[in-house]
């Protein structure tokens, strides 16, 4: 991860990748562009962090990779959210909301 996004809380990158893939199947570059766009440029992913997260998620059965042709007639590995991945994303999103609210309450005290 680049300097800008080194503050990403441990484990949140996995959640962001899952969220991105919940919208539609995407290849590695597509995932990083989408995360950068959705964060309005706050997060810029370095390839190492991104592909480590992808590897981890695929190993845990949360995403599935499949080689397919791109619009430009290239071959790229497209990732899809699995059933297990969708469940994990739902849980993590809920948990994140709970924790973020709790942290906000503490900071505002």
């Amino acid at each position, binding site marked *: 991860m*680049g300097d800008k996004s080194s503050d990403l809380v441990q484990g949140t990158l996995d959640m962001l990748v899952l969220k991105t893939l919940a919208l539609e199947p995407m*290849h*590695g*570059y597509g995932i*990083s*562009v989408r995360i950068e766009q959705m964060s309005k440029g706050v997060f*810029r*992913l*370095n*390839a*190492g962090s991104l*592909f*480590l997260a992808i*590897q*981890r998620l695929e*190993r845990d059965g949360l995403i599935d990779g499949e*080689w397919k042709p791109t619009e430009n007639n*290239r*071959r*790229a*590995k497209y990732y899809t959210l699995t059933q297990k991945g969708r469940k994990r994303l739902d849980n993590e999103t809920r948990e994140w909301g709970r924790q973020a609210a709790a942290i906000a309450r503490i900071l505002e005290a």
Partner: protein
Amino acid sequence: MTRGKSMSLLRSVARGFRTLFRKEQVDRELDEELRTYQEMASEEKMKQGMGRKEAARAVRLERGHLEVTKEVVRSAGWESVLEEGGRSGRFQLEAAIQSVHAEPAQTGRTDWAAIAMFYQQLNRIAPTLGMRVGYAAAIAEAEGPEAGLAVLDPIASDAVAHY
């Protein structure tokens, strides 16, 4: 170790690993995936008016060097297999030992140094008395009986009292 011997050890180890993890195919796919990633990122830069070289340099700076990325991802995958410490790591290593044991059918000899190396990993993630004795036997075959006995020495005698 002579050059010939260490090369043959390397080959055996490589063969064992391949059997286990289809390592080559995984590496090839990772290569292609990362190359495509970099090309896509470069093309985006070129659309913004950069030349090919300049685009490649900008992508390297922003997203990391391709070879470094490859190494980072590859080594993490490999360590996670060895260090997960759970059953699959153990069984995969046991399978590796079997695959080297089964090799004399093709080559007429057993590569004990390779077997010792797998036992060493196995001892690290699932240390049992049996593993340690297996490791000692492999070391004895590879490096001589003295070396094998040295592996057994640190075992406390009360640990084996009930055997």
